[in-house]
């Protein structure tokens, strides 16, 4: 077999950017995105100053998280070990961008599909070296076969001289650095100073640990090197995904509360248990779908999730869970309409697990995001589940304005339990001991760029508790429920952004 990889020889690299431009020429890469780029990192004080170059790109991981998460198989493993992609299959979901711990993938603004270094596999097929290899003035980029034990790359890989980026992600990269300063490979070891880069502007997309993040988790040796050149990498998921987390939590939560009411014997209450809740859940599921599809860069291809679905991707599994849950809601609704409330206890059996799945599958999806260590925490699944309770409780308190709830106290208690549990789980996460990456993400969440969103969540939580707990009446309780829902959105948005704030390159 063949397993192609690159040796990137930082000892010979002169930082000339020829590889960047040759790649742009070969693949017609638009402005603003890059398949390969050169990072400059500076260390030391005058006259012992030094500048280190490292070429950054896809690592063609043997255990590639982008392939695992890709819902349509657009990212695939070629026979020669290369991680390649097929534009025609890509729906532009951007999950791969979060799965990649190397900032290697971008959405091409002209095609709306995910692109990255594909080893110039079209050239390999023609028997030609990749374009970055042939252009390099100093032969600092070299192709090798890791399955050939005599090759330079295999020997380097076997020695302690060959470094890889982010080995802790255990992706088994096939890009091996020779002569590199470890600080130029570790995205947390250097930062962009406030006066920017050596000869390019700095945007919000340029990866760097912020001062807040560095204060929360200073480098072990106390010295942060300076990033003086790198390229921007956008944070793929924003408000739409946060909203999707909330809408499906509402859908799941409403049905969970309805299930509780069924268990409490209110299965025949059409308005509040058997008809309205599945309608609300259905509406929020539709909203969830709309949000999901609208966030695709190729929305017209959303059906590929089902027609070309990859079994490894939790995006696909999640779609099945959502579909299953939607079917339960529909059945529930029909049962309600046909006044067959008696079947609801039976329907609970599939509905409750699927509601929990709807709320919680995202934890498994996020666990596939190797680039977002914050999201991979063990706390995410319980948080999502209690958030569903919050969402369900919150939604029901709002519904109480329009219909008469049979067990207002139970609903309120559910909501208060959810709020408290969510708060407790977040506190446990925040005060816990974590890797530098997660510590930085949490610092961004609580006191960095996301602090106002995070603060909004805290305030909204408190307001919800104060308005709901004393049982002040329908309206204050409904306002409290709404506050809980809005707070939830603020939290999800902050959490998503904080998770993506930690530099990967």
């Amino acid at each position: 077999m063949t397993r192609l990889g690159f040796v990137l020889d930082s000892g010979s690299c002169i930082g000339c950017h020829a590889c960047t431009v040759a790649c742009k020429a070969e693949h017609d890469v638009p402005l603003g995105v890059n398949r390969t780029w050169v990072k400059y990192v500076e260390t030391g004080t005058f006259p012992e100053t030094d500048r280190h170059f490292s070429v950054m790109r896809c690592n063609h991981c043997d255990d590639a998280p982008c392939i695992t998460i890709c819902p349509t198989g657009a990212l695939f493993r070629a026979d020669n070990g290369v991680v390649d992609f097929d534009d025609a299959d890509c729906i532009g979901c951007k999950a791969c961008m979060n799965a990649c711990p190397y900032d290697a993938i971008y959405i091409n603004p002209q095609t709306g599909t995910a692109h990255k270094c594909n080893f110039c596999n079209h050239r390999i097929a023609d028997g030609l070296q990749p374009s970055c290899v042939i252009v390099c003035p100093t032969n600092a980029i070299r192709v090798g076969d890791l399955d050939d034990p005599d090759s330079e790359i295999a020997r380097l890989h076997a020695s302690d001289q060959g470094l890889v980026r982010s080995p802790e992600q255990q992706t088994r990269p096939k890009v091996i650095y020779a002569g590199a300063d470890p600080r130029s490979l570790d995205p947390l070891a250097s930062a962009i100073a406030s006066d920017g880069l050596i000869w390019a502007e700095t945007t919000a997309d340029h990866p760097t640990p912020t001062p807040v993040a560095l204060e929360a988790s200073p480098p072990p040796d106390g010295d942060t090197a300076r990033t003086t050149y790198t390229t921007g990498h956008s944070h793929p998921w924003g408000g739409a995904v946060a909203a999707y987390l909330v809408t499906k939590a509402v859908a799941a939560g409403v049905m969970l509360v309805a299930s509780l009411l069924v268990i409490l014997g209110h299965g025949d209450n059409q308005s509040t248990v058997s008809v309205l809740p599945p309608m609300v859940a259905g509406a929020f599921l539709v909203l969830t779908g709309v949000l999901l599809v609208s966030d695709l860069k190729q929305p017209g291809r959303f059906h590929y999730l089902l027609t070309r679905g990859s079994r490894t991707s939790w995006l696909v599994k999640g779609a099945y869970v959502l579909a299953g849950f939607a079917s339960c809601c529909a059945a529930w609704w029909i049962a309600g309409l046909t006044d067959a409330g008696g079947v609801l206890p039976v329907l609970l059996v599939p509905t409750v697990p699927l509601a929990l799945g709807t709320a919680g599958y995202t934890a498994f999806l996020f666990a596939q995001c190797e680039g977002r260590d914050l999201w991979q925490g063990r706390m995410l699944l319980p948080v999502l589940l209690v958030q569903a309770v919050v969402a369900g409780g919150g939604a029901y308190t709002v519904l109480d304005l329009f219909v008469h709830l049979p067990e207002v106290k139970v609903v309120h208690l559910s909501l208060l339990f959810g709020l408290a549990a969510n708060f407790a789980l977040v506190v446990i996460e925040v005060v816990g001991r974590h890797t530098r990456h997660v510590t930085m993400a949490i610092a961004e969440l609580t006191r960095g760029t996301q602090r106002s969103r995070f603060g909004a969540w805290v305030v909204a939580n408190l307001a919800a508790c104060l308005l709901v707990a004393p049982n002040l009446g329908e309206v204050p309780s409904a306002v409290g429920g709404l506050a809980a829902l809005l707070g939830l959105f603020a939290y999800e948005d902050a959490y998503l952004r904080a998770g993506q704030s930690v530099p990967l390159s």
Partner: protein
Amino acid sequence: MLDHYPPEEAWDDHAALDPTAWPRRVERRFRLVPTTCFNCEANCGLLAWVDKNTGQVAKFEGNPVHPASRGRNCAKGPATLNQVDDPERILHPLKRVGKRGEGLWERIGWDQVLDEVGGRIGTALREDRGHEVMYHVGRPGDDSYMERVLHAWGIDGHNSHTNVCSSGARVGYATWMGFDRPSADFANAKVIFLISSHLEAGHYFNPHAQRIMEGQRGGATVICVDPRLSNTASQADHWLAPWPGTEAFMLLAMARLLLEAGTWDREFVRQWVNWETFLAETRPDLEPTFDNLERALLDHYADYTPGEAARICGLDEQVIRDVTAAVGNGLGGLASHTWRASSAGNLGGWQVARCLQFLVVLTGSVGTEGGTSANGWNKFIPVTPLAPAPQGHWNDLTWPIEYPLSHHEMSILLPHFLKSGRGRIDTYFTRVYNPVWTNPDGFTWLEVLRDPELVGCHVALTPTWNESAWFADYVLPMGLSSERHDLASYETHAGRWVGFRQPVLRRHGELEGHHFERTYEANPGEVWEEEEFWIDLSWRIDPDGSLGIRQKFESQKKPGTPLTIDEYYAMLFEGSVPGLPEAAAADGLTPLEYMRRKGAFALPGNQYRPYDRPVPDGQLVGTECGEDGVFRSPGTAGLYKDLTEIDGHMPFIGDGSPAVEVNGQARVGFPTPSKKLELYSETTRDWGWPEYALPTFIRSQVHWEDLDFAAGERILVPTFRIPTLIHTRSGNSKWLNEISHRHPLWIHPTDADELGIAESGLVRITTRIGWFVISAWRTEGIRPGVVAASHHMGRWRLDEKTGRSWGAGQAVIDRTADGQWRIRREDTQAPYESADDDTSLIWWSDAGVHQNLAFPVQPDPVSGMHCWLQRVTVGPAADTDVYGDVVVDTEASHAVFEEWLSAARPGPGPGGLRRPLWFARPVKPLATAYRYPN
């Protein structure tokens, strides 16, 4: 096994898979046409991939058969595609219709251009005003074609960019060895000593970088001298950052340490250095024996102790000793280079090159494998076919009597000379030259270019808009690297080659069976190439042949018709490139077809130590051997009584003496008057500068001990290059500008704190003639006391919609109440809609600061080199200052010009000459033109 390039035999029809269709296997067919890059001066090989379906170039890769670049390129090679596809490039000849600089143009045809411009020049020549025609070129990209044109026109009309570039280093090298440039054999070196940034900058970036890293991987120690941490310095084994302007002192201290330690090549120096002259001139008290040389040198350089060098240069003494020890370990293998850098920065910068070469000489590394050769041994300029006789005129605007040793034209002084009434220009061509932007004191250029009394007609030959073209009467689009013919050779390594640039779409079209009369028929729009332009223009200058010009551009095969490019290069390749006809015949090709197919040719033969080769007796017939062992030929610059005896073309360098006796045998030697390496330069002595006859430290205009640091004075380095850009030529590459578009002021944190400059705050830099506003960038990568900003950025345009693709912000130029010029940004870089989708994706806004406007001319009185380093006052910007502001008083700049002019020591020199006959000079005139009129 993967190949780097498709095999040569497939270049005419290569099938490749479409990368955008992949993983579907969609085949596209290409023709691979070799040409050469026209971004920096290295002229690396390119292969244009012409898509047979679209007939357009799809991409540029390297040319694997190019001996210098070996198939590899820097970022600027593949970026050529952007320049070709630039949506705002100039595609048709334009003629001014409003006032000069007003920006109103009409499209005209080439025929009209030729008639009008040719008519003007013809009239000037007939009225004996040939000296009013000037061709001013930046990077020529060609070796000898234009010399032929100017000789044919019989005018001394050549002007160059060299004294903003390399005049300093050239004089330093020429006074040692005649040849004005080094050619370091980096790949085989033991020690690589760079006072330059050759891993990122020119002369010759990519070919040199390949070989420097090859040398380092092979065990060579790399030493880099630079006040800032260049990429080169960062990869060097030793980075030395002496005070700018003290490099020569450091080098002389190193020379002294080598002498002290006995780590120098005595035998080489004994044979090949004019040490007898040194002893005779400086130590008449000593016996003129070689054994006394070491003592005399140690005495002469007694003050250059490592301790004093450490103090003057601001270096650690031990570092100086360590680096010298490394140099001493590399006897015979010291590959060194300085180009621009301090030799272009300081008053006396030429002595930096001279002192560096001193180390090369002492270590016996001249022309050795792994050592430092002369450019002339590794650069091959073919003899021009049908070469006309040289002109009998001398142009005092370019070669003024004040600067008899200036290595090239005093181009930066041209506007001041015009303003001073020394002459006027009737027809002024600028080509690959943007003086308003590139030269110091651009507002004075602007004043002169706007004045039709001083410049009658300005013809800008340029593929894209630039600041100077805006002030032209004709803007004539000339081809980019893949749209023109040129022939060039450079001393990139130990070996000789010629590289052939060709218009690839014309070549492709011809192979597809089309016929083109002129290259512009195949190029985009009506973009022409200069070589055909000059032929056709010469016909219009002299339509009836009465001036004797037309005949020199007439076909030999078809008399009465213009010479064609094919005919010209067929003659050249058949008769002027040794080994090429044989190599072509072996492939069954004509030499021209061979070059069209391969794009380059490596001349056979080893060029190490050519000076040591014996000269056969037959070549000495008729010569006279002097007491100094030099064989001189009568009727040459080496041996004459009257200038009229020297007929026709003089050698480009040297006095034409064929040999010198060394070790009892006539040998080739060096093209200096002594035919040896000149430790003591009698030429320097005889032409007004006896105190600089030896390698010497000259205290510069930015010497740190003269600065008032407390008052905010600092040294500004405004010239450094970065690897992705090249002067103003690379402006219209989106990929290059995306990578690099800002040039903040490098400042050490201690300086920033002391001067009260906030992090990323605005800085006002005040020079002697004005000031500019730039942003600060704190870095440990610069010597405290020195600030620096790369020169590439700061492009501007005066029109809202013209030239947006060249990295330029829209600006307004006006005059302040007190008559000072001011330029201020109106707009930054911004996305815009065009035929190229990428222009809407521009994500950066910075367009930089045009620093050069605020620099006065500072010509070195010996070399004529503009001394780029500025003594400036650095401080926080005023509240009213806007980033990018430049304000200049051109009266003050004229006063500075007069001050520096007064430091020159005017000729004529010995024999009443304007300049030493043996010195190199572009478009060398007849010997009689050297006589200065009484």
